[in-house]
């Protein structure tokens, strides 16, 4: 469905993409996860033929991106796309749907309620709904969404994800929770490189979970590593940092087995700190 090989892109001295390759097959739901500036939007822009890579190639549905878009089986929601202000929502959606070989107008009560309204008077969330309707206007085989839920409230987010359920989707996000809930595969992007690519659980183990920080008088790294839930241990002198997917089990076993554990503190491992540990530098 989507095939990227060896993409590089530089903006002056800044390397936005540094040899990224990615294959997405039919039916997959892939989250492109990374902090702001990781290269997500650059990657999607190249995949869509909106931006030329310095080297490497992109193919959509087995053809060059522009051709695939012209054939009308790809739906796209861009982060920075605008809408004309002076038109009515219903006219706009109908006009765009009419460009596709398989027009499909999103059956959504909220969208229908907006049909007679002019775009100028819409809220940010309503605009995003309209943009989402435009992305679905061709009944696409492949959906490409760049930060699709920005500006949406919880209900609108849920509604949006419900509608993409049966399609192949590639979406960019900087929320681990969103990737967790709606993707079955996560591609972790940092500093223009793919630093991890795998099932959600695997990535969650890498970047998610809880950090447990403690001091031990007699350091026993293998013992800490064997605690339930722990998948990573970093030791600095008398201090150890455990990364765990199940902090309750880890702590229970810790206190049972290590009587000398002191200064135990836990904190949620956020995405940014996980990137630092994965890439060895700030993303």
């Amino acid at each position, binding site marked *: 469905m989507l095939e990227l090989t060896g993409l590089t892109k530089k903006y002056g001295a800044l390397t936005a993409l540094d040899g990224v390759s990615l294959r997405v097959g039919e039916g997959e739901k892939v989250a492109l996860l990374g902090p702001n500036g990781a290269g997500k939007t650059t990657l999607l822009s190249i995949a*869509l033929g*909106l931006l030329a890579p310095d080297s490497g190639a992109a193919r959509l549905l087995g053809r060059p991106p522009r051709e695939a*878009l*012209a*054939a*009308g089986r*790809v739906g*796209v929601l*861009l982060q*920075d*796309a*605008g*809408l*004309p*202000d*002076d*038109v009515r929502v219903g*006219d*706009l959606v*109908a*006009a*765009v*749907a*009419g*460009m*596709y*070989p398989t027009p499909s107008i999103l059956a959504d009560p909220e969208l229908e309620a907006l049909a007679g309204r002019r775009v100028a008077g819409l809220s940010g969330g309503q605009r995003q709904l309209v*943009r989402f309707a*435009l992305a679905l*206007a*061709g009944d696409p085989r492949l959906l490409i969404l760049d930060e699709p839920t920005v500006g949406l409230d919880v209900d609108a987010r849920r509604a949006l994800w419900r509608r993409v359920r049966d399609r192949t989707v590639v979406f960019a996000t900087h929320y681990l929770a969103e990737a967790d809930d709606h993707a079955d595969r996560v591609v972790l992007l940092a500093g223009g490189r793919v630093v991890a690519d795998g099932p959600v659980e695997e990535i969650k183990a890498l970047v998610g979970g809880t950090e447990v920080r403690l001091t031990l008088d007699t350091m026993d790294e293998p013992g800490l590593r064997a605690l339930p839930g722990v998948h990573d241990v970093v030791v600095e002198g008398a201090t150890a940092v455990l990364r765990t997917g199940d902090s309750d089990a880890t702590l229970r076993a810790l206190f049972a087995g290590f009587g000398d554990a002191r200064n135990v503190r836990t904190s949620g491992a956020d995405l940014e700190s996980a990137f630092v540990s994965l890439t060895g530098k700030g993303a």
Partner: protein
Amino acid sequence: MRSFLRFEVRRALSSPVNLVFLAGFPVLLYLLWTKLLDLASGPVSMVSMATYGAMGGALFIGGAIALERSGGWLRQLAVTPLPAHGYIVAKLAGGMLAVLPSVVIVLAAGALLGGVRLPPATWLALPPLIWAGVVPFAALGVAFGYSLKGQSANIAMMVVYFVTAVLGGLWLPVSRMPEGLRTLAEYSPAYQAGSLGWRALDGLPPTATSVLVLAGWTALFVLLGVWRYRSAGWR
């Protein structure tokens, strides 16, 4: 493609801004020249002002393109099956169709408010002649629309609009200009666009010079527009 064309045509025809700008303003100027200041003859000024309004309509197709480029709508269209030239064609079709009602309104103001009386054949000939005369400005507008973004395009075009209209004798007749300026004026697209209608008032067809000058400007502006469009693409 066809659905987008219909959408753009409807959009252009239903814009109240267009109507005020392309018909209301020229009608006011017409009344000013002929009724208040008594500077120009009724029929000639009516044709001049209809041409002036039509010229603005054609030129500001580019203003709409510049606004949509800066507002990101073109980025959205870039990921639809609509080809880039399909966008321009729809913009031109909508914009040029919206010019026609404004021409008719200015002519109607001439007949109803200015007391202009002409043979029916002349009334019928005027709108298509005026409309055809402003075609080069549509091409120029597109070139502008792909050179500048947002409001800066509109400001630049406002200046070009005003200067070419005055130079072309649409505000005051070329015959009142000094000799050197007059020669320059006669090769300007606005003057030749106006002359199609002015000659029609006397029952005369367009001259070969008019046709050649207008075709020349159109060709030049189309080349300019294609060049600008190529370098901008969907951006």
